[in-house]
Each structure stands twice: as C-alpha cells, then as structure tokens.
C-alpha cells in the first residue's frame, strides 16, 4: 500500500513538473582543457544530464566522471584512477539557480546573458560558484553555453610532481547543452 502511495506521489510530481515549464537534456556536453604548452590534455563528456525550471530558475547538472573521453588511453586512466578517483566519486553535480531568470524571454528568439549561481560538487568537494553564460533561443529550441575555470586545488585534486608541468592547475571548462521541454 505504502509503495503504491509513493508511486502515485511520484507520478503526481511528474505531472506537476510537467506543468511547470521545465527543460531537460540527457545529451549535454561538458569538455575541459587542462593542458599546458607542453601537452594538450582535453576531454569531452557527451552525456551530461541537465534540467532547469524556466519559471523559478532552478538549474541542475549531473555527469559521470567516467564518461570523459580522452585522445589517449593513459590520460583517461590517470584521470579516473589517480586524479578524480572515479570509482569512489563517480559523479559531479551542479545545483543552483539562474540569477537573472526574469530577464530571459524563453518564447522570443535571441541570445540572452545568464548568470548561474550555486554549488559545484567534484571529487566529493562542494564549492559555491557563479558562472556567466549565454542562453540561445532559436525557433523554440533552447541551448545554453558557458565557460568557467576550475582550480584543481579547490577540489582536492592533486597531480603528482612527475606530470606537474603537463597539467594546468586551472582547468578551463566548457558547457554546451541543447534542451527539450519536459
């Protein structure tokens, strides 16, 4: 009985969500550049899940650390096993709000600056961040792009001395998501 109730409550939530003008994607991309002049270290994750509420501005991202694809097998292995410890901390999250949600008109084509503020959790460390980005509305399609920097030290990600000159202490992160209505 309890289970049925929970299931029903879940369904209600689902419909409630539906009515609230939420947008989501399961195929967002997050890529990063962590290279230096000595070495290119780039990776891309193409199955980022993100959802936002166009009325309240609530905004969430989640991705799997294991989902980053590198050019070289060894880079991917070191990234997962040594730096990110992805077996212990398999996911990264962002949870926050679009601060200036009221100035974005989701029903009118255009490019709108958007500032997103909230908590970014990587490697089991949570930090408050504020990121400027752009919402692009074109023919009913909504996409969002942003670029920001992440300092490895902020998230307790340590890089051994041997490769210190090959990996930047500040990593450039690029976000690119195309949303569909839930």
């Amino acid at each position: 009985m309890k289970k049925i109730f929970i299931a029903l409550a879940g369904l209600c939530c689902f419909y409630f969500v539906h009515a609230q003008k939420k947008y989501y994607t399961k195929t967002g991309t997050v890529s990063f550049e962590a290279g230096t002049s000595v070495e290119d270290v780039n990776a891309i994750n193409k199955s980022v899940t993100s959802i936002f509420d166009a009325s309240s501005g609530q905004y969430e991202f989640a991705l799997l650390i294991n989902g980053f694809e590198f050019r070289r097998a060894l880079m991917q292995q070191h990234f997962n096993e040594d730096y990110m410890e992805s077996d212990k901390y398999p996911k990264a999250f962002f949870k926050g709000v679009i601060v200036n949600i009221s100035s974005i008109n989701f029903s009118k084509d255009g490019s709108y600056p958007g500032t997103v503020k909230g908590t970014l959790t990587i490697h089991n460390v949570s930090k408050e961040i504020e990121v400027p980005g752009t919402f692009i509305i074109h023919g009913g399609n909504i996409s969002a792009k942003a670029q920001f920097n992440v300092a490895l030290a902020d998230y307790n990600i340590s890089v051994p001395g041997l490769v210190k000159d090959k990996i930047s202490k500040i990593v450039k992160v690029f976000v690119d998501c195309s949303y569909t209505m839930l």
Partner: protein
Amino acid sequence: MKKPFKKIFFLALVLVAAAIGYGFYLFYKKPPDIRQESASYTFTADSIATVYNQNENEANKKFLNQVVAIKGIISKIIIDSSKSQATIILSTNDPLTGITCSFYDSEAGSLKHLKQGDEVVVKGVCTGKLMDIVLNRCSIQH
C-alpha cells in the same frame, strides 16, 4: 673479459631502447576502438535497468568500464550535426530509467535508417548511472 662486458653492454642498450619504446607506446596509445571488441556482457534494456535499480554500487563494481551489448527499444534518437553528436535512448520497464547510448561520431550515419520503436542491439562501454544508465563509444551491433 672484454668480450662478455661488450655483450652485457649491448644487451643493456637493447633493453633500455625497448623500455623507452614501450614507454612511448603506452603514452601515445589511443583508447581501444570498442567497435572492434566483443561484449563481455549481454543484457536486455529491462534486465540492466533492474540490476542498476536494485543496487547501483554493486552494478558499477561489475559493469563499469566493461563492454556491454544491450537489446532494447528506441525511445528517442538525437542527432546534433553541429556538434557531430549522435545518441540513442533505449526505454526500459522503469519509466524513469532509460539507457542513454552515446555513439562514436562516425557512427551517426548508421542511425539514419532507424526510428523510434525499433528494436536494436547497442554495444558500448558502461559508464555508470545518472537518471539513465549511460553507455559511451557506442555502435549498433548487427
């Protein structure tokens, strides 16, 4: 006395060269092409969803980074040519859990003749679970 020394020196040189060569090989090695590998596990979409929903950690221990083949019904095909990105979402018996299959960029062409509702077998690397179970580096298995 001189001759064996020379031999040892030569042998050491060969070993060092081999070690350096192997180091370079490891360093520059590309990630394996999953299309060429055979699947370690074969599932239906429903069965892998059940396994993950019962115990995500245990499922990850077994299947993370393994090549899996999953048979399921296509609920959505997403092809974003601007980012050369091709994804299929398979449905499962749990409406809140799908299987997001991110394909090799060059495999986008093989999805063109597919449509929603088709049954396919997708091969890829199990990457874990967010809302959906995620497979990376996918291709259609014939």
